[in-house]
């Protein structure tokens, strides 16, 4: 009894304690709650009479509002009045309120909203209104809470209708006349798209519409959203991603686990260090994960566009028409146009000739513009357009008058463009460009050789005889690139390496496979029907296979037969892949033993890497393809070198020096003795513990006396 009343007495002074009591037992503490509610109401009336409050009166008000917002949901009808009251005040006097009070009211509303005690739509509407207040902290809070609410709705997945109304409301706010409202709406959309709460085509297209907004900041944000991170454009992500994966496999512990493990154990120095390391690693993981997610997201958004052709045309028109706009924005617009053209293979043919005027070595950010030219070049652009583009680059960059860097960049750009549209290359042009392989600057010569490497595997006939390299299996099968030609194969290339007659075991294997995915009966029927026609061909192919491998027609026939008659297993696919790889290498093995130079190996590796990269993501070129310099242009100066060294030393202990940290560092033994229990120290009292012999004492006395007299 006394305990209860004691707690009650304490609660009479302490709002926090009262809050606890009310939350535990809302029924019996209703009166207390009502009293606080009335207190709040009277405070508001006072606020009405006297808008400027004394700064010391703010704290109690904030406390009461906080109390009510946490407790009110236990009393639904009061919570409702409280919420509507708050909304009314913020709506009518939001601009004039004290910033702290305003923020507290907003926080209270969010708290009510989180327990479904406030209407969602009104709150969101109100928050968009309040964004107008010139209050940075409030704006930040509002933005965060709007996104958090969207997240809540997304995770709960209860009220789909509400979500759609909110979405269309936010879309409408994009067209608001006040720039800050439009901007906030846009940021909300972008954030919720990135985080996946509203990842749909409607949102993506609403953001796309912002690329033509009249406010420059909104425009830039939309453009940057579609372009993704600048790091991605520069192509700087691969190594991080790899190390990331390894780390993940090693320990998949969460931060919480690590922290609890640390809290439980003894805190040695090593454990502290390990904890810091683990924390850092987890942070890095999170960051990388986020990065990856946003990287995917811009490509998804571009793919979600309803009418990419129209979008690209509009964007291009706006780039073309507005001369007065700042260069940075224009560059972003050009970038996005190129990206959309490249991803969707669009026909915006004016774009290429538009780029001509920017393709000068002295132009600002010319490497980026070259990159955009390369990104916009895809296999469906007419050859004459690309030819013109390449010729302009060649004329402006790849001449002896220019610096070596300009030539390198130009050659790289030409290589990137031609790798997308090899049909646009002419023999004359190639001859001119490949002459640079003997150029005295290494960067230039390597760039020229990169171009040669590309054409060896694409169209060796355009190269000089010497540059073509040894013919391999792969080059024999090569088809000449033609504009608009569709080289679709009716068989799995390389399937001829497999035996035609399948052994029993393998048979069982694929039958099991077939049985496992019994979803489509029609498919299996088809397979049953096929064999009679295939048997005849099989016999033909057998003959061909025995007679000779060097006939490509026979090979194709055999491959057709194999790929038509059965389902290839995983192992067989692997076999095919190695076989295809072998085709390219064969010449080297069989060659007359000329050793390949390091540079050749490097070029080949780079080419293979590039091919692999083309398969994943958007498959477009990156900035480091254009700015590929084989030799460093600039050496580090001393400061940079030292900085690098210091960076490497981070986290390593000093060698040889005693550490100056720890609980007892910096105390003398005497000081330490004062802290010890007297029982330990009493033995060591100075003088008592010295065991001197009588003779020693005598000697020292004598010495002392002699010194005194000055005899010694």
């Amino acid at each position, binding site marked *: 009894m006394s305990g*209860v*009343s004691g707690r*009650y*007495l304490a609660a*009479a*002074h302490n*709002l926090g304690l*009262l809050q606890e009591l009310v939350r535990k037992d809302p029924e*019996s503490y209703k*009166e207390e709650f*009502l*009293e*606080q509610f*009335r*207190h709040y109401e*009277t*405070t508001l*009336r*006072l606020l*009405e*009479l*006297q808008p400027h409050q*004394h*700064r*010391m*009166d703010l704290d*109690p008000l904030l406390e009461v509002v906080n109390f009510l917002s946490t407790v009110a949901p236990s009393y639904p009808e009061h919570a409702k009045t409280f919420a509507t009251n708050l909304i009314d005040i913020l709506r009518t006097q939001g601009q004039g309120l004290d910033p702290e009070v305003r923020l507290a009211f907003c926080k209270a509303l969010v708290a009510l909203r989180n327990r479904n005690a406030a209407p969602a739509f009104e709150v969101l509407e109100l928050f968009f209104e309040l964004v107008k207040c010139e209050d940075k902290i409030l704006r930040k809070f509002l933005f965060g809470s709007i996104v958090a609410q969207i997240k809540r709705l997304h995770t709960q997945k209860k009220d789909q209708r509400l979500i759609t109304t909110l979405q269309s409301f936010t879309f409408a706010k994009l067209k608001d006349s006040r720039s800050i409202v439009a901007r906030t709406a846009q940021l909300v959309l972008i954030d919720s798209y990135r985080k996946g709460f509203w990842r749909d085509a409607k949102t993506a297209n609403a953001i796309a519409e912002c690329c033509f907004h009249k406010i420059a900041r909104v425009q830039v944000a939309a453009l940057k959203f579609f372009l993704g991170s600048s790091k991605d454009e520069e192509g700087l992500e691969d190594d991080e991603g790899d190390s990331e994966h390894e780390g993940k496999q090693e320990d998949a512990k969460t931060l919480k686990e690590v922290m609890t493990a640390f809290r439980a154990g003894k805190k040695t120095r090593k454990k502290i260090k390990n904890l810091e390391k683990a924390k850092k690693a987890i942070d890095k993981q999170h960051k990388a994960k986020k990065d990856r997610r946003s990287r995917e997201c811009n490509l998804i958004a571009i793919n979600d566009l309803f009418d990419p052709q129209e979008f690209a045309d509009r964007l291009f028109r706006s780039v073309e028409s507005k001369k007065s706009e700042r260069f940075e924005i224009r560059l972003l617009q050009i970038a996005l146009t190129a990206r959309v053209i490249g991803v969707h293979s669009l026909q915006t043919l004016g774009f290429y000739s538009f780029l001509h005027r920017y393709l000068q070595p002295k132009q600002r950010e010319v490497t980026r513009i070259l990159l955009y030219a390369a990104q916009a070049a895809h296999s469906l652009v007419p050859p004459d357009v690309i030819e013109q583009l390449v010729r302009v680059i060649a004329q402006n960059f790849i001449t002896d008058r220019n610096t070596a860097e300009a030539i390198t960049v130009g050659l790289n750009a030409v290589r990137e463009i031609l790798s997308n549209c090899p049909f646009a290359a002419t023999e004359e042009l190639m001859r001119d460009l490949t002459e640079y392989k003997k150029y005295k600057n290494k960067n230039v010569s390597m760039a020229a050789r990169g171009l040669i490497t590309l054409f060896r595997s694409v169209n060796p006939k355009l190269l000089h005889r010497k540059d073509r390299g040894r013919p391999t299996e792969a080059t024999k099968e090569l088809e000449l690139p033609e504009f608009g030609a569709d080289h679709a194969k009716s068989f799995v290339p390389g399937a001829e390496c497999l035996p035609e007659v399948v052994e029993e075991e393998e048979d069982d294997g694929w039958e099991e496979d077939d049985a496992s995915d019994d979803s489509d009966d029609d498919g299996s029927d088809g397979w049953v029907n096929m064999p009679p026609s295939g048997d005849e061909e099989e016999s033909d192919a057998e003959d061909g296979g025995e007679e000779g491998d060097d006939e490509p027609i026979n090979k194709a026939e055999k491959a057709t037969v194999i790929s038509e008659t059965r389902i290839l297993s995983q192992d067989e696919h692997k076999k095919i892949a190695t076989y295809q790889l072998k085709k390219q290498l064969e010449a080297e093995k069989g060659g007359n033993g000329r050793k390949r130079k390091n540079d050749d190996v490097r070029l080949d590796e780079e080419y293979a890497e590039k091919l692999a990269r083309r398969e994943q993501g958007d498959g477009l070129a990156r900035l480091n393809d254009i700015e590929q310099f084989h030799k460093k242009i600039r050496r580090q100066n001393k400061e940079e070198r030292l900085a690098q060294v210091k960076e490497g030393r981070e986290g390593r202990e000093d060698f040889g020096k005693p550490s100056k940290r720890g609980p007892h560092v910096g105390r003398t033994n005497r000081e330490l003795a004062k802290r010890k229990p007297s029982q330990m120290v009493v033995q060591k009292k100075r003088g008592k513990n010295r065991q001197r012999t009588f003779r020693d004492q005598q000697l020292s006395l004598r010495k002392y006396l002699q010194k005194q007299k000055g005899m010694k």
Partner: protein
Amino acid sequence: MGKKAKKKLSKDFKKVKLKVGRTLKKPAVTDTTVHAKKLVLLEQLSRCSADVSNNPLSHRKLSLEDLIQQLGHYNKNSRKDALAGIKQLLADHEEMIVPNLRTLIPSVARLVTDDQCAATQLPVLRAVLELICRSTDTASMRPHFALLVAHFSLGLSHLMAGVKMFALACFDMILQIYPDLCLGSADVFSSFVGFLAAWERPKASEAKRTVSQKQRVLESLLKFLNVFAADGDHQSLSKTSARVLRISVDGNPTGPYSVSLQPRNGPFDFHVLSSTAERLSSPLESVDELIKLWQCAFPFLLNLLLETASDERPDLLLIGNVARGLKLLAAKAAKVRTTTESGERLRAELQKSLSKSVRRRLSQLCPLKGQDAGGANRLLVDAVAMLDALAAYRPA
């Protein structure tokens, strides 16, 4: 050495090197920028301070503005000193109060809710408030009254009991000094009823309510009922509202170009300016408000009466007060009950609270023990009779 010295000699006519894209410096330039500095005359400053000294100062040489500023100081001792200074200054110069009401009231009244202030400060604060109220007449207080009441009612709903009791005392004061204004203000009624409702809750908190606290609440309730439930308040209201504000353009107050404003309550009370609409009649005329008051006041009085009467030596004065309160309440209820609209609800409420058992217990109390219980007895008997009449009433 000698060569160096020679080099250092400056030439009169240097040879100027000409280069492309560089403008020549002029050899001789006149600086035409003007610098201005402020002149500060010490005499002027001293005269300024002399002007200030014409204002009355407190014993510590602080003017009223300074003191008011210090009332909002975060240090409670400074606040206390400032309050003492204000008390002394205002007591010496009472004529200063009315012109400075606009700044005085918000700064002084907000101390009512100050929960950190020492117990010794409260009487001083009370004295200052009383001083202000006593030396300000109703008309000059009218524009500031809403603010004053708002501060007091904030105190009434405060979490801490001490602040509450002090705010109650403040309410007593304004009920006594400005009954008209209180009657006209909607806030006074609602906040008092709210306080009473919170006071009358069936909780563990009952235990710590001392008798003296109850007595004080009872006294306040009596004063409140005297203002709100007593009859004859309409005359004073109509008296104040008879004033007319005349604005004339050509100087002739009755001429054709004069406008006469007939304010409802006072020259400063316009609906646009004041947020809470003031009423002409007592809020107790409406049945809803009366029911609210009844619901909180009647149980309070009843419990107090039963408790006190069951004591060994009942406090007769207290019982008399309670009976007086009951009488006032019953009289008001009986008066309002006759109005036709929504009288049914009031009747139901009365029936509910005045059940048979309650009435029986009341009637058993009647002959009080004690020597001079005569006055209290008489009051009690009257009250019980009125309540009985209320309960027995049936509409025709």
